[in-house]
């Protein structure tokens, strides 16, 4: 990749609330026995907190099933959190009822992983892009068409007239994803949520799509939450990285800090799995540290990584959950190794 890594934006003015603020978010799916009767919970997201300032891009990385998509769905208001809050411009997204949720959704865009599945197969491109505008209450057909054409140009599908009447199956994967992106930004959102937007595309189009997303982010001053498996795309795309493990964010830091001085043993293991961080290829997060990913129904006690952790502090990590420790400027990790005060070990 020939793109330069973006510089981290300086912390925004303290007084203004961040665009998005996630507070102790828990997304638990109830497990039902015989269709009713509670048998437990899948703790897909467990006590996650972070702030996202306007215009900033963050990446969430983590192995499959660690709860990334659940976090996204909660942020989009698609699943109701078990507990915790999601504040958008200081407002709890669930506090405003239907109307509040509707207004919130007008300001959020969603880019999904599978572009073909994300587009209704029976709708033309024009109709697909018209839906969010109709739902935004734009009654004038001409105005809608103008906006559709403008957004198609923005996602570099030109001439737009050629695509208006096409159906998703007539488009290539890259074009489909451009339509998905166009749909996500057509209402000029403030926040864009992208759940592995390029993982299902050919390697050749990935770069183009990421460039496009980056460009759109900069032009619109969009805040972006970007979920990925691919650390190389993270490096280039976002300012901060959150590392997720078994429903928790275990390390939050700038791209530079994560890559150059990872602190959490899981992050280190992740990076170790990448032979050459700068190399163009073979940087996928496919290889995971040894051991099984933990069950989210009965997560391990204490630190959830302890069964696989090479640097485990016996008698502590398996008993008590680690606190979030600031190990550097704007670099947080949840690990006992860096805690200033450790409770006495029991074993």
């Amino acid at each position, binding site marked *: 990749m020939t793109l330069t890594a973006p510089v981290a934006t300086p912390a925004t003015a303290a007084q203004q609330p961040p665009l998005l603020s996630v507070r102790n978010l828990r997304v638990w799916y109830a497990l039902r026995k015989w*269709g009713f009767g509670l048998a437990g919970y899948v703790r897909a997201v467990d006590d996650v907190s972070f702030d996202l300032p306007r215009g900033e891009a963050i990446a969430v990385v983590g192995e499959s099933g660690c709860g990334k998509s659940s976090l996204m*769905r909660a942020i*989009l*208001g*698609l699943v109701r959190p078990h507990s915790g809050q999601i504040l958008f411009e200081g407002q709890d997204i669930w506090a405003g009822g239907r109307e509040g*949720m*509707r207004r919130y*959704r*007008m300001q*959020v865009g*969603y880019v*999904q*992983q*599978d572009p073909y*599945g*994300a*587009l*209704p*197969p*029976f709708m033309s491109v024009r109709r697909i892009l018209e*839906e*969010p505008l109709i*739902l*935004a209450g734009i009654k004038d057909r001409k105005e809608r068409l103008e906006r559709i054409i403008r957004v198609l140009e923005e996602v570099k599908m030109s001439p737009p007239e050629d695509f208006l009447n096409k*159906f998703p199956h007539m488009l290539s994967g890259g074009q489909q994803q451009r339509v*998905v992106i166009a*749909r996500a930004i057509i*209402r000029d959102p403030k926040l864009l949520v992208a759940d592995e937007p390029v993982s299902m595309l050919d390697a050749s189009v990935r770069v183009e799509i990421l460039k496009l997303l980056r460009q759109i982010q900069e032009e619109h001053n969009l805040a972006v939450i970007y979920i990925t498996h691919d650390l190389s795309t993270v490096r280039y795309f976002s300012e901060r990285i959150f590392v997720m493990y078994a429903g928790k964010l275990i390390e939050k830091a700038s791209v530079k800090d994560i890559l150059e001085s990872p602190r959490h043993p899981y992050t280190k293991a992740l990076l170790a799995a990448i032979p050459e961080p700068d190399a163009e290829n073979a940087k996928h997060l496919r290889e995971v540290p040894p051991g099984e990913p933990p069950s989210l129904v009965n997560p391990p006690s204490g630190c959830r990584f302890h069964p696989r952790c090479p640097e485990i502090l016996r008698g502590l990590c398996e008993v008590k959950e680690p606190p979030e420790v600031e190990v550097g400027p704007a670099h947080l990790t949840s690990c006992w190794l860096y805690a200033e005060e450790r409770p006495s070990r029991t074993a």
Partner: protein
Amino acid sequence: MLRGAWKEIRHYPSAVIGLVIILIYAAISVYTVIAIPYEEAVRLWRGGEDIWGDNPRLAAPTWYNLFRKKKLPLTIKMDDKHPSVKDLGYQQVDDDLWVHDLEYAFDFQADEFPQDVALFFQAAFQKKAPYVSIVWIRPDGKEIRLEDLSIRGQRQVFLVSQAQRLHKKLRLPEGMDPVVPLFADDYKSENPQVLKGTYKVRLETTLFEADSTINSKLVVYGKVHGWAGTDHLRRDLSVALLWGAPVALSFGLLAATGVSVLTMIIAAVGVWFGGWVDAAIQRITEVNMVLPVLPILIMVGIFISRSLVVMLLVIVALSIFGASIKTNRAIFLQIKASPYIEAARSYGASDLRIIFFYMIPRIIPTIIPSLVLGIPSFVFLEASLAVLGLGDPVLPTWGKILDDARVNGALLQGHFYWVLLPSFALMITGIAFAMLGFSLDRIFNPRLREL
């Protein structure tokens, strides 16, 4: 997708044939409804002798003669203004006595005897009714005095088949059709044959008042009639056969569409809202699936109404919670999980919008073939109800023709056409929709093509 299907249909000959039949069928229906409006059809079908009196009873369709060596006669009918009638006018023979002679003549060339001969009279008088003698004159010159009678009514009929005095006079052999002596070369012989030629009927009327008048009409009932024949009430079956088409088509179409659409909506609502809504729909479906439809319909027919509209509503109500709810549900569950639904929620589509604009359009291609295939089954159901005596009380339908045929022992008495034509119409309907439906199924659900 639908446009593509349209193009593909042309590659399926069975679909094209089915479609052509259905289009013809639709054209006939439209023609029928325009040519014989509803009120007219009901009036005709419920009408009695006043409407159908000139038709033979239980006559076969005319085209039946094409398959016969001995041709059956058509009905001959003429009134006293007919050009071939020789009218000698009224003549006063005394103070209070007038006579009026009139002679009908008709050519009879069929190989079989006609069904009956009727003379309809209408007289005007103050006190004393006119008096008529009917004389039958055969081609061989033989004259038979059929009857002498006074004409008292507005509409008085003389029927050879019911003229007891004539039967006695002729010493009609046991079991012989009374028209045979009138038309046979030698009715006493073993095997009487029709005497072909010009027959005449002379009416010698005596009138007793100055302005007394008499009018008459001759009908020689044949044994074939129209393209569809007649039933036991002399009604032309073509009326019911024609009217059966729009009734069956609209009944089948409405029932199948109603059931498919409602089933689809119910399944979509259940899947989308899930929880107790889904559970309730599932349980209702399971209970409904073991309910016997026909006995319920029979009960409704007996206790509530036999009207076609009521039956339609009951059938639809009983069928919407059918097995197809389950198949629809399985498809909707898949659709509900697709990412584009999640996307729609994320940009704020309401529940109803998602159900109607995002889920249902997806399932329509699978619904269309089963809808088309469902049409004939509802047409047959309606016909079965009619055969069970639960047909609509006023509308002429194919099922009601079959019911009449069954009640009157049509097949036992050899009136094959009475059963054949409505059955044929029903069969063609079934075949046409089946051919189209199965082809559509292959077009819309290509995975079946490999099977």
